[in-house]
């Protein structure tokens, strides 16, 4: 039996009478690439914030990397990585300075930071740019760098919030290569995305509609279940019935 890095049971978050997240239950296994899908307003972001220790649930249970989301938020944070589309790196710091900051904040020793940092820069082929400000990089590089920084401290899980928005297909492909590599090294990937083709890359996928999880399985099984050719169609069929369509 593989380790469960995320355990969720009847997790609920409500704002007044409004149930943003309505009794969702699911598990995520170590090393998995888990796709967390859903339309805007379906409750994805809210759920993810709870798992990242940014928000308290209203009821239900959840544990991330073995830590309780109610009582052990700080421990959760130590063991996860995070990257969002909106922001990940400081634009007015250099690549190296960004790495140094995030590495240090997660407790990596200065010596380690230097070693890993050099390796990382080499891996990404950014030796020329190492001293440049991140703001000067093209978006694709920024995304890749951001991901690398997010897993720099070798967390158990990394949360990716729509990481590939606005990026060209080639870069997206490269990005997913990086995700595969990380997964292979034992890091669990929890990713939300709008791109349904990316859903195909995941080991398992869940789909939230109106605060509930309406589907949870491998992409292959889901396509069979809904007699669909693509995940796109699966998504379409599920969300057509949705009441909440937008944030």
């Amino acid at each position, binding site marked *: 039996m593989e380790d469960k890095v995320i355990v969720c049971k009847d997790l609920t978050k409500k704002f007044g009478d409004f149930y943003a997240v309505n009794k969702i239950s699911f598990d995520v296994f170590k090393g998995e690439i888990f796709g967390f899908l859903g339309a805007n307003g379906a409750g994805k972001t809210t759920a993810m914030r709870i798992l*990242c*220790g*940014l*928000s*308290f649930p209203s009821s239900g249970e959840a544990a991330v990397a073995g830590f309780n989301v109610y009582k052990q*938020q*700080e421990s959760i*944070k*130590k063991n*996860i990585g*995070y990257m*969002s589309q*909106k*922001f*990940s790196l*400081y634009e*007015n*710091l250099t690549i190296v*300075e960004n790495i*140094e*900051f*995030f590495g*240090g*904040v*997660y*407790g990596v020793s200065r010596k380690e930071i230097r070693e890993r940092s050099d390796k990382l820069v080499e891996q990404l082929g950014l030796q020329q740019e190492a001293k440049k400000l991140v703001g000067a990089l093209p978006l694709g590089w920024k995304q890749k760098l951001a991901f690398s920084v997010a897993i720099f401290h070798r967390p158990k899980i990394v*949360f990716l919030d729509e990481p590939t928005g606005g990026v060209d297909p080639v870069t997206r492909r490269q990005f997913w290569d990086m995700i595969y590599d990380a997964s292979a090294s034992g890091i669990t990937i929890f990713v939300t995305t709008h791109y349904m083709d990316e859903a195909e890359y995941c080991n398992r996928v869940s789909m939230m509609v109106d605060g509930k999880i309406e589907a949870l399985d491998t992409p292959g099984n889901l396509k069979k279940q809904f007699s669909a050719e693509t995940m796109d169609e699966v998504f379409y069929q599920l969300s057509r019935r949705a009441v909440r369509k937008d944030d």
Partner: protein
Amino acid sequence: MKKLGFLLQKEFRQIFRDKTILAMMIAVPTIQLIIIPQAMNFDIKNINISIVDQDHSTYSQKLISKIGSSGYFRMISADLSYQQALQHIENGTSDLVLEIPPGFERNLVREGSQKIGIAVDAINGSKASIGGAYLNSVIADFNANLEINQVTVPTNPAPAGFMDITYSNWYNPLAEYKYYIVPGVLVLLLTLIGGFMSALNIVREKEVGTIEQINVTPIMKWEFILGKLIPFWIIGMIVFTVGLTVCWAVYGIVSVGSLPMLYAMAGIYLIALLGFGLLISTYSNSQVQAMFIAFFFILIFILMSGLFTSVESMPAWARFISNLTPVTHFIKIVRMIMLKGSGLSDIKTELGYILAFGIILNGWAIWNYKKTS
């Protein structure tokens, strides 16, 4: 603690990369310190006066020439009638009109008293009323020096009851306004920079979204706040030093009291200010909003803090508000230490206020600032 070190490293890198910050730290205080006290000058000279002499006597002419040679006044016109002189007030060329009635000299000698009319352009504020006071004192002087008023034969017993009043000004013998103003402006600068730059900085993180990124990391609430406050505290102290240097170099003003204590007070004041900035940032979501709120308060602080006008003269309710502003107390402290050499026990009330502000503002701000909801 180690995390704090990394945080501070990042903050300093970011701050110094922003050229405007450096400009603000050095250039703005210097320029403002140089300009503002020069502009704020209450020593009144060049009071424009129009004279209506309807007497044309020896006395009236002597009086007029005394006024002219006093150095305070600028004779704008000699008019034939009050109405004519009034024109000058209307079109703003004169501040005062002096009207010597017909028969002035003759009536003074015969009846022992005469009235001279003074009309003051009261819209012109301090210039006019101070001008009026100067005019009065010139006239009184003239009055006292008239031969008819000289007591040539000392009678016995000598007329009793003359009260000879002497005055002296301590700490500022020449009564120069700059001693009053410059420390105040210094405090103002510190307030602008310490209070609001920090607010803007934090709100900028909110706006851009980087705060969310920080929230996900193991950085604790208090570490984040310290990481924001410490750099600006240091910058504030640097600005204070620059300011003090300008005070010395440009105005020759050196602190009479203990310099270390002055610095210590500045340090405490900055902490209170930074708390205020933090507080503003928790109530704003964008830099524009923060600036609006900040501006609203700055203006009130500037006016109510005793920088330009005295706090004691305000009505009770206004004094109450003034005491609620930390700026008021720090201005008092700076003036007391720099100009009078006050010691720790002398300023303990004001210090108490500032400490209280520091605790309340910072506490409130920290309570407001929540990482998790």
